[in-house]
């Protein structure tokens, strides 16, 4: 019996050794990754869209982290490699639509952005599922979605009549 246990320990030793080496290598890569910081910043707000009341609150809760310069960076946005992913997503989100630089958009661009916002609100994919999973408060209720949609439709109508 003793001999069997000793043999089992001998067999497990190389596996433990490799597992330990893999863990050390992974830790070293993780530490080294911290030397490559992501571009995490909140540039100045040049001109906010200025949505009123509850619409503004819903927009800030559900959209502003990726689509404005008022991103609330979570603590894990400082830790690579998550930081790279989050920074890239925010950069992409701001490039697509930035509520903080709304004043820099041409009237026709504003109209296009509003149309896309309206379409996004009619589908369940925005905010993205992974974001909602990390930020339960960003989930839009049916009432919030309806209020946002109505406000966006009014803005589109106003923009179209101004053309």
């Amino acid at each position, binding site marked *: 019996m003793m001999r069997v246990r000793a043999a089992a320990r001998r067999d497990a030793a190389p596996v433990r050794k490799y597992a330990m080496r893999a863990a050390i290598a992974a830790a070293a890569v993780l530490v080294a990754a911290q030397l490559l910081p992501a571009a995490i910043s909140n540039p100045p707000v040049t001109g906010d869209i200025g949505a009123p009341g509850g619409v503004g609150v819903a927009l800030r809760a559900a959209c502003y982290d990726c689509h404005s310069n008022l991103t609330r960076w979570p603590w894990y946005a400082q830790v690579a490699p998550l930081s790279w992913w989050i920074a890239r997503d925010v950069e992409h989100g701001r490039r*697509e639509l930035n509520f903080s630089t709304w004043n820099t958009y*041409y009237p026709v661009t504003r109209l*296009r952005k509003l*149309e896309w916002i309206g*379409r996004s609100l009619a589908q369940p994919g925005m905010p993205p599922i992974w974001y909602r*999973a*990390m930020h*339960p408060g960003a989930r839009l209720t049916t009432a919030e979605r309806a209020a946002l949609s109505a406000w966006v439709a009014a803005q589109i109508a106003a923009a179209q009549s101004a053309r």
Partner: protein
Amino acid sequence: MVLRIILNLIKEGPGLMRHPLRTKPLLAIAAIALILAATGAPARAGDTVVEIKLAEGHFEPQTLTVPAGQPLVIKVTNATAKTAEFESFRLNREKVVEPGQVIVVHVGPLSAGSYDFYDDFNQAVPQGSIVAR
């Protein structure tokens, strides 16, 4: 935290997390979509293929006429030094085009009418239009 995220995903889940067996067909579809996105689905016989070039400050040609009722394949070349996004609200398409890159956009049969397209990243570029007749 991981547990909280998983719980939130389950709450969110349109059945995705609740039934792991359902993820297999979804993964297969995702894989096929990924391959098609990477390679660009080939144009089929009967598809109308048009080419649009984004040159410095404008699209070439700015207006295209295509037959209505036929699937359309749009090849977009970004000949500028800036990243562009070929976008059309009416066509319901948006796709980033890096400098020097060619992208392929597939559109279903169009009803007769005019479909604007534009570079969403460079708003000074005048919009173009595809006219389906």
